């Protein structure tokens, strides 16, 4: 399938600090691509380049095979965009705000607006000034969808949404995927990306660390398993299991750090009496450790 987004050796420098360096990746039509990284890693910089809000220092990005610099209007017509940080027109109501954007886009069915608002339970008659943070996020999210875009570019879409609305958003995403539309979304939380994305690009300090299928990523993921045993067990049988990076046993508490399949570990545990079992979600830093070991990206050449 065709690449909807193609980023080639993209570099954006801001003096010495932020920015992105030499990014190359592509997003295929119909996939949900997650762009994962901690805040300040360069996610927003990349995204704003795709929409010609900022221009690359070097390299090139294309969207729908179009050049953002010269063909921004066409890209904008076919894409929906939710910025990571945004302002809305405080004096307008939600309905007026969406009516304005719909008029500027020109190809919006009012029923779609109504439907999205119902779906996210947003009262469009309220003035934006009086909306809560979550409701402002919903309104900004809705505006990205009103014209049924082929591509959605969403910068941290779930921030500020309550869990119920996150759920609704995930469902909307899966519908969009079913319809063969493409989604490029950024996030700084691994579980979210694992849940909704097909592929994930991981970015840290402006450098693309890896691009992988979610399944592959999951298999590489480091997990910390804490098992409360009925009585002390030795670490030796666990330490030799495949993928185990570290195993400690203090009193009844057995702690195993493992990357890869959990099955052998669980089978080994089952030979003993287990009182309680806790598996920690890996943090982003844990994930970076998987790819770097103890080295930071600054040792990654440039």
């Amino acid at each position: 399938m065709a690449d909807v987004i193609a980023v080639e050796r993209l570099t954006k420098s801001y003096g010495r600090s932020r920015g992105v360096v030499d990014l190359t990746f592509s997003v295929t039509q119909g996939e949900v691509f997650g762009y994962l990284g901690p805040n300040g890693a360069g996610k927003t910089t990349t995204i704003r380049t795709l929409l010609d809000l900022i221009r690359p220092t070097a390299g090139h990005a294309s969207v729908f095979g179009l050049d953002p610099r010269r063909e921004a209007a066409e890209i904008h017509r076919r894409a929906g965009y939710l910025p990571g940080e945004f302002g809305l027109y405080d004096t307008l109501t939600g309905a007026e705000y969406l009516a304005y954007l719909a008029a500027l886009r020109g190809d919006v069915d009012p029923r779609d607006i109504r439907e999205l608002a119902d779906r996210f339970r947003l009262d469009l008659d309220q003035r934006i000034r009086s909306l809560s943070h979550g409701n402002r996020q919903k309104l900004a999210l809705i505006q990205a969808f009103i014209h049924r875009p082929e591509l959605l570019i969403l910068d941290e879409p779930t921030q500020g949404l309550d869990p119920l609305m996150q759920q609704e958003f995930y469902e909307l995403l899966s519908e969009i995927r079913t319809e063969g539309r493409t989604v490029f979304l950024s996030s700084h939380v691994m579980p979210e990306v694992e849940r909704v994305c097909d592929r994930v690009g991981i970015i840290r300090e402006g450098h693309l660390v890896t691009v992988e299928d979610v399944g592959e990523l999951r298999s590489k993921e480091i997990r910390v398993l804490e098992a409360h045993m009925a009585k002390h067990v030795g670490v030796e049988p666990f330490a030799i299991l495949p993928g185990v990076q570290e195993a400690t046993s203090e009193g009844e508490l057995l702690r195993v750090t493992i990357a890869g399949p959990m099955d052998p570990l669980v089978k080994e545990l089952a030979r003993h009496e287990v009182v309680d079992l806790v598996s920690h979600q890996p943090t982003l830093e844990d994930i970076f450790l998987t790819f770097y070991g103890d080295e930071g990206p600054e040792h990654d050449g440039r």
Partner: protein
Amino acid sequence: MADSAISQPMLGSVLSKTVRDQRRALVWWGVGLVATAAMYAAFYPSIVENAEVLTQYLESFPEALKNAFFGSDADFVSPGGYLHTELFGFFGPLLLLIYTIGAGARAIAGEEERQTLDILLSTPVSRRRVLVDKAAALSATVAILAVVLWVALVLLGPPFDLTPGVANLAAAATSMSLLALAFGAIALAVGSWTGRRALAVGVAAGIGGVTYLIDALAPTLDAVVWLQKLSPFYYYDANVPVKNGLEPLHAMVLLAIAAAGFTLAVIGFQRRDLTA
């Protein structure tokens, strides 16, 4: 029903939305201009009554000072002369410049600082189009204010014998709106290049202050009289439009400044990164 809001005529374009945003402010500016016109009209009879004393008083001023504050003409007794030295000499342009500089600075830099620009520019509307619409909105709103002032003077002048002529008043209001538009365009240009509203206000207001003083003081020094012609204020009222009508060439100069400001704004806005 929210569906009824879907096709709001005033939210159909960046131009109409920008004018709509100003509607409440425009009412207050209009009220202020009408009140100003009323006040200057109401004072006129007492000026006429005391014309002799005032003229004598003025004669006691050094020539240079007189020029600086009242212009070489120093006619402040005829209806046109009075309005030229008073309302159109200082307070009128001051009010209108405050409006256009504020609106020009807000147009792009204001949206940018409020972070509303990212979403606006993610629609198929181009940067150039946004800027053209913002410039058009600025022109339209300043025209509205000029018309309000003109109507106020046409209606409120006669009861106080302040009658420089309807056409001359229109000429003066037009000249003033062109002057204000020129400075609004400067503010818009600075805002479009930098994205910084306060800077745009500061630069435009600073240029306004300096060129006003140049226009007022340069004629008092023979060596630098020519400097006056660098000031937009010279082209605004050197010809005393409220007595002599609009001087087309001077009006063109003001229009050219505005056009240059708008053009620079488009160029600057298109070539730079938007602040996140």
